[in-house]
């Protein structure tokens, strides 16, 4: 009996212990994905906590917010980024200096992984040779070269603005280019110079020349782990395992790992397991069809549909009453319609980034909030116009019948406006299926996860494996609403006959 109780207690404890979790984050580029996966697997092997990886959480701002809010416990970061972007320090800091500044934030930086992935400018070898450009300084004499720089590089203090000043470069600030697409652009000769990372696998593949940073402008970007300060105490065994990653890499090793993912089409998990000395029997990657129906298909489909359905449901529940308010109360009309209109003009990534600090969370909640906000306009506007467009005579006759306003709304006006309202809901649903792909950048899942990975890897098959089902879902939703419309609308009214002509 005692033994049984002990066994039960052990099971319970076992359950409770397993509930201890470690969540690893990563940014939206190959190296960060791979390092995140390696950190996750290393933590998993320590056997102390359930380790999970939330990959590709957008840029520094989003992944840092996730760490600060405790959504993730640790992620791979670079000392230069911590110093300049996170701490906004104007002077160089060593690891001790970083930690002193991070302490009040409840964060720590440590476990130097052993390589420096700094920014660099790269040109096609043949073009560089033709122009005689070897260093960044040489660019100053060639204002005609076309720059193709990433958004982040253009925006960061230690990126383009500082570089332009330090080297007195005559080039004007170019439009931002997604880093995943920059190599295609330079290979096609559309741009001459791109920003790259020194551990970038594609530098070799695309035969690029890294321009020498002869004025030592770019700071050191040593890869480290940035983690919540309580992590070593909370999970000591896991932490010991992670600390063993110190110095486990060098630049060449990292380039090789990046190349395995980007050039040889291995999954991040495979690359990470390979690095840790594991071999998985099953090899993923391969054809588009294989990737399309990879094991995560149903999870992504579920997440995607859930994001759209929940946000749409809430938008209907709030948008239709708002539309009625705009119809009934002229004083509120302009406010309501303008407000939902303005929301629509906010770029989606900006809205997501804005909602993260508001909710103190990344992932599903801010994604749902953003999708809900985007879904409002079509529903509110169509509810309002559907009601406002009812033939005045019909409204008058309902008044003449002595029906009170609420009854008129319910029995006469809303049914007459139902087709317009349904069209608004359809528009919102289709738009949300598309917008939900962007939710993956803040860790909300869905088919956007594949699109983000595909972009980061410059891997069209993975990108399409996300984009095609998302597009199919949009068509499915559209078709579903068409059927609903046919089912709800009587035959005779479908030819566009308006109530006023009856």
């Amino acid at each position, binding site marked *: 009996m005692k033994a049984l109780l002990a066994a039960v207690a052990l099971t319970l404890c076992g359950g409770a212990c397993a509930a201890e979790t470690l969540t690893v984050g990563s940014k939206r580029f190959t190296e960060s994905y791979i390092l995140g996966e390696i950190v996750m697997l290393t933590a998993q092997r320590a056997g102390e906590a359930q380790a999970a990886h939330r990959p590709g959480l957008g840029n520094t701002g989003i992944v840092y917010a996730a760490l600060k809010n405790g959504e993730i416990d640790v992620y791979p970061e670079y000392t230069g980024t911590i110093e300049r972007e996170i701490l906004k320090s104007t002077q160089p800091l060593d690891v001790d200096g970083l930690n002193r500044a991070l302490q009040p934030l409840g964060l720590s930086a440590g476990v130097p992984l052993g390589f420096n992935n700094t920014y660099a400018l790269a040109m096609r070898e043949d073009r560089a040779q033709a122009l005689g450009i070897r260093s960044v300084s040489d660019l100053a004499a060639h204002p005609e070269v076309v720059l193709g720089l990433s958004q982040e590089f253009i925006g960061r203090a230690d990126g383009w603005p500082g570089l332009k000043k330090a080297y007195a470069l005559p080039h004007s600030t170019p439009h931002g280019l997604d880093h995943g697409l920059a190599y295609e652009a330079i290979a096609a000769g559309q741009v001459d110079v791109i920003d790259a990372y020194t551990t970038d696998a594609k530098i070799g593949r695309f035969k690029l020349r890294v321009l020498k940073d002869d004025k030592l402008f770019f700071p050191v970007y040593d890869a480290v782990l940035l983690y919540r300060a309580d992590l070593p105490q909370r999970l000591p065994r896991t932490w010991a395992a992670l600390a063993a990653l110190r110095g486990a890499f060098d630049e060449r090793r990292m380039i090789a790992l990046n190349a395995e993912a980007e050039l040889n089409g291995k999954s991040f998990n495979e690359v990470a397991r390979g690095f840790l000395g594991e071999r998985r029997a099953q090899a993923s990657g391969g054809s588009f069809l294989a990737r399309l129906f990879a094991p995560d298909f149903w999870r992504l489909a579920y997440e995607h549909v859930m994001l759209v359905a929940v946000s749409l449901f809430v938008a209907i529940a709030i948008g239709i009453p708002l539309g009625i308010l705009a119809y009934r109360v002229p004083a509120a009309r302009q406010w309501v319609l303008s407000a939902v209109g303005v929301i629509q003009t906010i770029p989606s990534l900006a809205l997501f980034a804005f909602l993260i600090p508001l909710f103190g969370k990344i992932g599903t909640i801010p994604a749902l909030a953003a999708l809900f906000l985007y879904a409002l306009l079509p529903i509110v506007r169509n509810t309002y116009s559907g009601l406002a467009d009812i033939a005045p005579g019909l409204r008058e006759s309902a008044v003449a019948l*002595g029906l*009170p306003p609420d009854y008129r709304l319910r029995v006469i006006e809303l049914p*007459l406006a139902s087709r317009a309202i349904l069209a608004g809901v359809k528009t919102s649903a289709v738009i949300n299926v598309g917008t939900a792909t962007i939710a993956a950048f803040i860790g909300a899942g869905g088919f956007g996860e594949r699109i983000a990975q595909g972009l980061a890897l410059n891997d069209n098959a993975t990108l399409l494996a996300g984009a095609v089902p998302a597009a199919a879902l949009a068509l499915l939703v559209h078709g579903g609403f068409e059927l609903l419309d046919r089912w709800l609308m*009587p035959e*005779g009214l479908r030819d566009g006959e308006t109530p006023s002509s*009856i």
Partner: protein
Amino acid sequence: METRDSIKPRGPIVIDIENITKDYVMGEETVRALRGVSLKIHRNEYIAIMGPSGSGKSTLMNMLGCLDTPTSGRYEFNGKNVAEMNDDELAAIRNREIGFVFQTFNLLPRSTSLRNVELPLIYAGIDPETREQRAAEVLADVGLGDRIHHKPNELSGGQRQRVALMRALMLDPALLLLDEPLGALDPVTRHALQKDLKTIFARLGKTVIMVTHDMGEAAHFAGELILMRDGKIVQRGTLDDLLKRPTDPYVTEFVSAQRSALGSAA
């Protein structure tokens, strides 16, 4: 005609308005649609209101139908002071005591004849079986027994107007207001429906007020005609009064214009 009118028994007063005015504010301008109208109408009277566009006919109909309240003046409907009622009380009067029929019928486009006719009964809280039965009965009465499950777009203009008329009569209102009820119909349908309406009205025994542009139609239905101009009543009387004893030069002008229109049409 004189004799017919004079022997007609006069019931109690249903409508008693005294010197009502109605102003509409349109932007910065105030438009006076009614400029002091006084009118007494007894139960079972049939009245036709005529006059050019903008003469205040529709505004007067809205006042009589309790769709709107006057800016000044007194209005008693069945002895109750309407000018002082709130929206709910006005709605209750419209629902129970007044039936309205519009030129454009204004039937619910997606609902069957039966459901359109039932509508006032639903709100009055009558149980579904009774109201369906009553709606079907009155539709059968006006020859639409085989059209009860048809929607407005499956009915002819005349049939639609009969449905609209039955809807207005469903709660047995004391007053029936018709705003150019036959104006949207073709001449043949119009003529047929004129006969039907007359039969229906004769059976009902209600106070009926109708706006029409057609003097022949007015004379066909109504005991008395009211001619309006610029928000005022110019003359009230039988057709004979208007023809032979005009009180204003405008009456003669209006009557001869109607006649020449009739003449050119014939």
